[in-house]
């Protein structure tokens, strides 16, 4: 293995600028003449909007829906039958459907002055009863978010595979009801955009903190009625996305329109208040899940009714259908059983539209199915891990097509559990539990195991009805005049370190020194079209494309190099930045010089495509990769305060061949911390009128360094048979397991008190209330 090729923990190229404070985020861009934008947002969750009144002295600085003539609303059309379309106006008109919805844009020299203007804009509205709960939203008398629908259901899907009377009559029937909270994704950098007209390129340029520049380009062009080529999107350094920046934002469209219309640059930077108050947009699910098992705890079937609180609108490009469809297809988890029924619905409420957050449906799904596993273990009186071992797909069954037709591409799931159990030390924890703690706390151990479909291919995503289905990811590889390598990709790193890992891939194929490879991304002007970075797809697909482009470029370099050595290309090889035969070699720089500067030395039949190649990735199967992991956690729960301390946390992960193990560990740890947030801390609750109750970080608790132990990451490596280098998508797994593992551990700790909690987050109030209820019922 090369020190900088695939499999090496190369230090991240981008960190040099990040750590020195030289990153280039949207807020770092300076364009002369820029004016700042502040938005007037809906103060209510549901209302009929009668008028928006700007003060009379504000002409030309305050803009409402009435000004945006000809601007089209956002419509995320999906191919799923029965999906009800929502039309999201760029600035609210007719109705206000959630708190924080953008109503007007105010433009001034500074943000403070723009906010002064925003304060003076009057909204005339008639408040309507709000739908704030996804279950209540389905009642026949519920207020309607979109009247023309007749109900509040975006889509309901039904799966029924192999369920029989025999399974329904199984000796064990374990039912759990689980709710997950609404969360904010909280990347370090919020959203933000800067828009200006570029008269030289004859386009609107939008510098935006987005994960998907080409998608935003399409969306903005469509809404503004411009050809795609008249919109350029630059996504510079992006300070975290997690899905929060994987959409077309109304604000981006407004900024584009303002720049086109006013003729000067405009900028908007989301602040923390906007993020919390208008964008608690992920994770809220509800499950009633029943597991049917035999007396040995062998799972025979699962029956589930799932709801996703999808909020008021369907977001482009993921749509409101995505998460509910994923839930239905992912509930079976990593387990081997053949009877499955699931009804899942995406429900419209007066909350902000849901977006897929790292782990997407899987975080809730894992919590639901692992609660059933724990329930079975309690029922038959065995260790929870034992029930997992009895039900996981076994290595000899791989590759395995599960009850939903998901194609697991390999691995040893039970071994992952055994290693995690050994690493956390379940036996020692059991001994410690019998001894008891001197401080009165209760110790518990919990486990979660899951597989993580990543790099979903065309057919998978088409089946989920995404309005934009990804195809063959492409990359451009180009040898420069001095023999350096330039790589251009359409994916976009927002923290994943692609400048490093894609260079490792290119180095692996061509041997150009790592330091002389430059990876370029984040600009629709010079990168190939891509749906970009989401769904743990970039290394498999973008990396696969880089490898393929480099391989073809290598062939072209070889042909020229061999000619320069007067050798037969069949006798030559490419590597280490040279073309070699048994007796001679020429460097890539010499090849490049011949092509660019001394073409008289080129072979007469040279490929005139030259030293620049665009090539795409075709997976051997497009059913996605399946990483898997077991998370094990040991907690101490204080039954008098309801506070939970994490004493130890182990992640056993198999992500196939890791291109950069250090970066993977970072991904796993970062995701795990977010999962701990879901499990213990993060929730935005809404009052009955649909007001989000967290408006600052005092109310919205994020896990901090003090709340997270050293997360121990252990690896297994089962290469994917279907991808270049055997890599698998692993960007999200960290965030999937923690809620399930934590609930399992807290319940294990509180078992002596007769307490079993469902749902997250497990804040002190919830724990104390459950402890008090259990005490009351035992004393009664």
């Amino acid at each position, binding site marked *: 293995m090369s020190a900088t090729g695939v499999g090496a923990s190369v230090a991240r190229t981008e960190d040099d600028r990040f750590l020195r404070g030289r990153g280039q985020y949207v807020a770092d861009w300076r364009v002369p003449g820029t004016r700042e934008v502040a938005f007037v947002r809906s103060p209510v969750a549901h209302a009929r909007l009668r008028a928006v009144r700007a003060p009379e002295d504000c002409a030309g600085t305050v803009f409402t829906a009435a000004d945006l003539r000809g601007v089209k609303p956002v419509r995320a059309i999906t191919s799923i039958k029965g999906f009800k379309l929502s039309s999201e106006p760029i600035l609210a008109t007719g109705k206000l459907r959630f708190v924080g919805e953008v109503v007007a844009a105010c433009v001034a020299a*500074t*943000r*403070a002055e723009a*906010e*002064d203007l925003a*304060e003076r804009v009057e909204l005339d509205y008639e408040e309507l009863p709000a739908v704030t709960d996804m279950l209540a939203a389905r009642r026949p008398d519920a207020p309607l978010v979109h009247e023309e629908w007749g109900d509040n259901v975006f889509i309901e899907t039904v799966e029924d595979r192999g369920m029989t009377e025999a399974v329904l009559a199984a000796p064990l029937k374990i039912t759990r009801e689980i709710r997950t909270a609404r969360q904010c994704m909280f990347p370090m950098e919020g959203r933000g955009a800067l828009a200006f007209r570029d008269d030289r390129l004859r386009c609107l340029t939008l510098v935006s903190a987005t994960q998907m520049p080409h998608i935003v380009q399409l969306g903005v062009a469509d809404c503004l009625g411009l050809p795609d080529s008249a919109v350029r999107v630059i996504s510079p350094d992006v300070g975290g996305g997690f899905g929060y920046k994987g959409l077309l934002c109304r604000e981006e469209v407004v900024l584009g329109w303002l720049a086109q219309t006013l003729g000067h640059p405009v900028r908007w930077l989301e*602040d923390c*208040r906007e993020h919390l108050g208008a964008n608690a947009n992920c994770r809220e699910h509800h499950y009633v899940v029943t597991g049917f098992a035999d007396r040995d705890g062998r799972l025979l079937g699962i029956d589930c009714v799932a709801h996703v609180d999808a909020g008021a609108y369907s977001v482009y490009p993921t749509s409101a259908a995505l998460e509910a469809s994923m839930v239905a297809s992912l509930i079976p988890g990593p387990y081997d059983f053949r009877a499955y029924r699931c009804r899942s619905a995406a429900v419209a409420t007066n909350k902000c539209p849901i977006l897929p957050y790292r782990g997407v449906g899987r975080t809730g799904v894992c919590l639901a199915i692992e609660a059933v596993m724990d329930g079975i273990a309690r029922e038959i009186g065995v260790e929870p891990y034992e029930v997992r071992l009895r039900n996981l797909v076994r290595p000899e069954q791989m590759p395995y097509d599960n009850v939903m037709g998901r194609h697991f591409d390999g691995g040893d799931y039970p071994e992952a559990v055994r290693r995690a159990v050994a690493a956390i030390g379940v036996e020692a924890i059991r001994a410690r539990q019998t001894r008891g703690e001197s401080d009165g706390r209760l110790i518990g151990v919990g486990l979660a195991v899951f597989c993580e479909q990543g790099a979903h291919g065309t057919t998978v995503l088409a089946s989920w009805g995404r309005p934009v289905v990804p195809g063959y990811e492409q990359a451009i590889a180009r040898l420069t005049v001095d023999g350096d390598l330039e790589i251009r990709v359409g994916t976009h790193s927002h923290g994943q370190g692609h400048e490093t890992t894609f260079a490792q891939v290119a180095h692996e194929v061509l041997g150009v020194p790592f330091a002389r490879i430059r990876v370029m991304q984040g600009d629709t002007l010079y990168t190939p079209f891509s749906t970009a970075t989401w769904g743990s797809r970039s290394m498999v697909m973008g990396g696969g494309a880089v490898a393929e482009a480099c391989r073809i470029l290598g062939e072209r370099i070889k042909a020229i190099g061999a000619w320069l050595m007067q050798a037969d290309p069949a006798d030559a090889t490419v590597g280490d930045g040279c073309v070699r035969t048994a007796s001679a070699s020429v460097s890539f720089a010499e090849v490049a010089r011949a092509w660019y500067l001394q073409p008289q030395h080129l072979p007469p039949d040279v490929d005139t495509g030259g030293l620049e190649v665009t090539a795409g990735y075709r997976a051997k199967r497009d059913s996605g990769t399946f990483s898997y992991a077991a998370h094990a956690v040991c907690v101490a729960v204080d039954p*008098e*305060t*309801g*506070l939970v301390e994490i004493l130890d946390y182990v992640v056993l992960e198999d992500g196939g061949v890791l291109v950069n193990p250090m970066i993977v560990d970072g991904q796993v740890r970062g995701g795990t911390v977010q999962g701990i947030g879901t499990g213990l*801390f993060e929730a935005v609750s809404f009052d009955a009128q649909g007001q989000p109750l967290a*408006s*600052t970080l*005092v109310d919205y*608790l994020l*896990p*901090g360094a*003090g*709340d997270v132990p050293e997360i121990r990451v252990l690896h297994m490596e089962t290469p994917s048979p279907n991808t270049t280098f055997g890599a698998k998508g692993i960007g999200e797994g960290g965030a999937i397991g923690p809620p399930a593992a934590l609930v399992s551990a807290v319940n294990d700790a509180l078992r002596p008190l007769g307490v079993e909690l469902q749902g997250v987050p497990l*804040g*002190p*109030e919830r724990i*104390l*209330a459950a402890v*008090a209820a259990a005490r009351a019922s035992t004393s009664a």
Partner: protein
Amino acid sequence: MKPVAFETVRAASLAEASRLLREAGGGAKLVAGGQSLGPMLNLRLARPRLLIDVAGIAELTVAVDAADQVVLGSCVTTAAVEDGRAGDAIPMLAEVAGHVAYRAVRNRGTVGGSLCHADPAADWPTALAALGADVIISDGRTERSVPVAGFATGAFETALAPGEILVRIRVPVPSHSAAWGWVKLTRKAGEFALANAAVLVDHERGICRIAIGALRGPPLVVGDARGLFGGGPVGAGALDRVALNRLLGAHGGDGGTERALHVTALARAADRAAAVRSRT
């Protein structure tokens, strides 16, 4: 969010600050560390025309440790107390300081600012009330003193009249044999308290005082808390939880699980008092 436009001036002396405050007639706000006022400004909850920065006034930043009392200028920072640069004669002060917010906040945030902000969830009001501290207030001409236990009159409300400035805080030094306990329950390090409680037992001075904070309004202070412990040695075991519950209810605190947290905080503070001596 950005604040509304305002002017700002650094007062060189207490007299100047008082004069500016008087002249502004309600349109001005004092700023010390800015750690509470800053967010209020950014959220536009506070909309002063003028900010008078008092953090640089020498008189307000001095701290004097005498044998019988510690005097903290109102603008002494929480970090200075944490580091023992102020209030070193009373070990409980550093213990309290070390768990207020994060170091970055403590570096700027002041003890006086915390008292004047009167956030029910704050730590200084509870701790200083338990220690029997009082505050000296000036209107620019005369000074008056108010016990910390009575300084906050409600959530974010104090006994300060318009134009008054908190000048310093006097904390009596407990005797050698005194015992104290401080407990702050938080969901995570650096957060505001879910519950906080202090116990001071100073037999030589005949003091058995408790304070419980993070309630809806100002802390509950019981000057003679012997009855709560059945007249005997303090400790969680001796705590009359029913009586304390009743007191908390009468004080207007929350019920249910939140009440239980406050009781737990006090019980644990009592246990610490049983174990920790104020000077060793």
